[in-house]
């Protein structure tokens, strides 16, 4: 525990130093590494022993004491946070423009890491909310790093509004909890779980408030905007860790409530919806980082399916299924942090090398950027969930939870059918993800350069490749380490499910995957050697143009045409909106094609709604006169009204 408190201080301290010496972002990165070196052993120890520690710090305002602590649930989320945080901090040093005072964003990054660490360490609601707000503001500052760009400012604005609508729900949630239980301390709240109608209200508020951060469909609309706008190492950190903290908050809050039957089904249903919608929208994005962001929504969906089925199974008394599904969800939180780290940092290197995020102007980068390209392909295979890499190991556990539940003899027919159809949903999501990521690597890395910028692309330096390589190593090793890794999750499971669950089923289920991965690696290596032998006598020539003598790079399949056939299968609401205007003349005339790949939820729900709200509020504009003493009057009036309400309440109680 002390170690993680020191890690917190190191992060803040190095951040402060780096912001004072803006030319040396390395100081902040060194701080992030030191924090990881301190915090990771502490978190591993807590996971291993399954104990919780808590520190209290006397502090006058806003409450009597500040309570921070580390328990298994916190430690589980702190691990990817610190590891990915260090990787992204190192990457950022080499990624950001040297001429633009890189120490400042590096310092803000450390502040963001410290805030996220404080979110998982907080042991009372006030500290959590303060840390939550710090996290939002620090990440907002980083998302709008390129604030000269109008699209970036808009993304930051959307992010800020969405986050604060979420925080409003969280404030209501904790006021409700604190009011009914007389304390904001997590220990007190968890000791006497809330039941009945108030618990249902609290659970819905938590789902809304934390769901915004987690990017659960339909609360996800800020996510693709912010991830595309942010510098790539910030996108990696947000996608890998920050959105998962929404899940942390949700799990933490559910611990303050009496378990309700509807949690599991609702979480699983939201997860299935998020997974399907997320990957469907990822299919047709031209912006590589937007596509990756939508894939994060899909992965949060997969995690939610695991969590939902796990809670459901533990409620219904199926400890084995609960252990499999919950371990799968937790492992996916870890593996997704690594995989999305590789993908976003890789996309950052591509952006650094070509200066564009538009898939249509990339192409052929594997030749110009062989190292980054190879690691990017590795990450893509992993994130689709294919063997022999990390994504398969975690998705396998979720699958096994569903299958073991669905194939157990007897049981409630409705529950069995839902589990089995969830398997089909995951299979469909897997196939769609294959399409999505083959498209990304195929259009960006393979084939011929689609623009002059892509033809001139440059490979990144070792400082940018090393963090990606480190995360990739994790992806390769994970299938072998997973049986041991999930064995350490027992105490987290007990905390989430509130009954002791053995992780032995998860470990034994993962054991064959390690063997499969080994067999597959050996077979691939052998196959590569054999093909190299057999094809030793080879010559190079042009790609066969099917008889056409002068093929150009423009004739390649584009990112749009690759996804076109599948788009026709999507519900009309989710498709890109494409309008074609042609002049109806005898001879070819002027034509126009506009495609809108914006988020369909923003387009058809949020924008019209917020427009109307905005028009209504415009009628209140007379309140804002911009005169200082008027605002003082407002404050005074608010205080008087609040005091009057309290007095009236006391009088009512006294009567």
């Amino acid at each position: 525990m002390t170690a993680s408190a020191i890690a917190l201080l190191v992060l803040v301290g190095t951040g402060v130093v780096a912001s004072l010496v803006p030319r040396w972002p390395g100081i902040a990165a060194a701080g992030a590494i030191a924090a990881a070196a301190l915090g990771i052993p502490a978190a591993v120890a807590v996971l291993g022993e399954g104990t919780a520690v808590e520190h209290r710090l006397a502090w006058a305002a806003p409450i009597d004491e500040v309570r921070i602590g580390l328990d298994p649930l916190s430690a589980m989320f702190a691990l990817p946070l610190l590891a990915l945080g260090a990787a992204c901090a190192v990457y950022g040093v080499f990624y950001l423009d040297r001429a633009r005072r890189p120490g400042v964003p590096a310092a803000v990054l450390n502040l963001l890491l410290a805030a996220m660490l404080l979110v998982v360490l907080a042991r009372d609601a006030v500290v959590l909310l303060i840390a939550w707000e710090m996290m939002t503001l620090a990440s907002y500052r980083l998302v709008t790093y390129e604030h000269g760009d109008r699209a970036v400012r808009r993304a930051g604005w959307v992010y800020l509004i969405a986050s604060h609508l979420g925080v409003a729900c969280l404030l209501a949630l904790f006021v409700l909890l604190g009011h009914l239980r007389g304390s904001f301390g997590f220990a007190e709240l968890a000791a006497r779980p809330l039941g009945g109608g108030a618990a249902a209200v609290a659970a819905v508020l938590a789902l809304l408030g934390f769901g915004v951060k987690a990017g659960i469909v339909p609360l996800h609309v800020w996510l693709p905007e912010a991830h595309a706008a942010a510098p790539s190492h910030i996108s990696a950190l947000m996608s890998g860790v920050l959105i998962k903290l929404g899940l942390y908050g949700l799990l933490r809050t559910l611990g303050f409530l009496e378990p309700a039957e509807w949690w599991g089904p609702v979480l699983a249903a939201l997860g299935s919806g998020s997974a399907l919608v997320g990957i469907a929208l990822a299919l047709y994005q031209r912006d590589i980082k937007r596509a990756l962001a939508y894939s994060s929504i899909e992965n949060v969906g997969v995690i939610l399916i695991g969590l939902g089925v796990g809670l459901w199974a533990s409620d219904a008394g199926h400890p084995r299924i609960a252990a499999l599904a919950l371990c799968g969800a937790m492992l996916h939180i870890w593996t997704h942090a690594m995989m999305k780290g590789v993908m976003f940092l890789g996309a950052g290197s591509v952006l650094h090398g070509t200066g564009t995020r538009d898939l249509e102007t990339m192409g052929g980068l594997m030749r110009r950027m062989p190292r980054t390209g190879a690691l990017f392909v590795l990450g893509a295979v992993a994130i689709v969930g294919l063997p022999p890499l990390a994504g398969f190991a975690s998705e396998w556990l979720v699958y096994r939870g569903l299958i073991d539940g669905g194939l157990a003899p007897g049981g409630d027919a409705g529950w069995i059918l839902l589990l089995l159809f969830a398997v089909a949903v995951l299979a469909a999501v897997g196939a769609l993800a294959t399409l999505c990521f083959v498209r990304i690597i195929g259009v960006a890395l393979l084939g011929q350069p689609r623009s002059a910028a892509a033809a001139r692309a440059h490979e990144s330096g070792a400082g940018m490749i090393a963090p990606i390589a480190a995360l990739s190593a994790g992806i390769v090793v994970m299938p072998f380490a997973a049986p041991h890794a999930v064995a350490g999750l027992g105490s987290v499971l007990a905390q989430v499910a509130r009954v002791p669950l053995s992780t032995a089923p998860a470990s034994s289920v993962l054991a064959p995957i390690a063997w499969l991965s080994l067999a597959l690696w050996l077979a691939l290596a052998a196959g590569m050697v054999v093909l190299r032998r057999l094809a030793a006598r080879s010559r190079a020539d042009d790609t066969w143009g099917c008889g056409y003598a002068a093929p150009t790079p423009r004739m390649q399949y584009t990112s749009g045409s690759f996804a076109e056939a599948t788009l026709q299968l999507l519900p009309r609401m989710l498709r890109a909106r494409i309008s074609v205007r042609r002049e109806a003349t005898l001879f070819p005339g002027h034509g126009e094609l506009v495609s809108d790949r914006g988020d369909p939820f923003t387009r058809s729900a949020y924008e019209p709604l917020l427009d109307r709200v905005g028009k209504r509020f415009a009628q209140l504009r007379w309140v804002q006169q911009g005169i200082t003493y008027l605002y003082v009057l407002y404050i005074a009036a608010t205080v008087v009204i609040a005091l009057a309400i309290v007095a009236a309440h006391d009088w009512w109680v006294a009567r």
Partner: protein
Amino acid sequence: MDIVRPILQALFILAVPPIMLGVIVKTKAQFAGRVGPPVLQPYYDLAKLLRKRSVFSRTTTWVFRAGPVIGVTAPLIAAAFIPIGDGDAMVSFDGDFLVVAYLLGLARFFTMAAALDTGSAFEGMGAAREATFACIAEPAFVMGLLAIARANHALSLSGFLGPSVAAHWPHDGPSFVLVAAGLFVVMLAENCRLPVDDPSTHLELTMIHEVMVLDHGGPALGFISYGAAVKLFVFAAMLIRLVIPITEPGWAIWLALAGGTIAISIAIGVVESTVARLRLTHVPAFLLAACLLCALGVVLLVR
């Protein structure tokens, strides 16, 4: 027997698949009133391809070579999970049918990536179509196997495609019939057969699989052809174990499997000779029908 069986199984998996292609071509030739190439022609073709020189496009990278390698290794490993002959498969653990689906998915990933690596519009087109149809075929495949698994209350291919299937036919027959029909359609689609794809011609705009491998030649093409045969065999063997349930151990099962392999090849040949290729825009509906058949199979079993 314990040592002999895996060796026999491995030999069967390695040797039998290409003959399916030969039988299909022979059947089609008979329908067309031709003599057709010998049944063993696929083996001669493979031997020829492996000895040929290679031409690699200047555009391509290592991904282009990874395509054929993964295209042959992944189906071979997948075949090891199929119970061939009497007793269990070479490898078997709970949930292994998902591993088979994902191994075939890995092969598809790299076949498509290799196609895009050439920078050719034709191959990109084939890859896009393959990806699209897989999005419907994949859930159908998984759901079909889930139905069989549900009936047998077993989680591994060896468990639910082994001798126990026979005992469940009288009771769960209706569901099995639906699933068998669904899996047959999935087999046709996944192995680029009519009415989804036409494997016998290159270079038409309706091609899917053949157009993806247009730029592969020599040993790489040999790998791909062999991998495709093994993949067809994986699907066929699962169907055979479902449709021809034999309980008594011994040579009868081996004979049934060999006979079934020929029978399925002939059935595919008959389909290819009598059915016209669907319009591409109608293929999704065809696959959705398979998906629904398998889903119905699941629903019928959960009571």
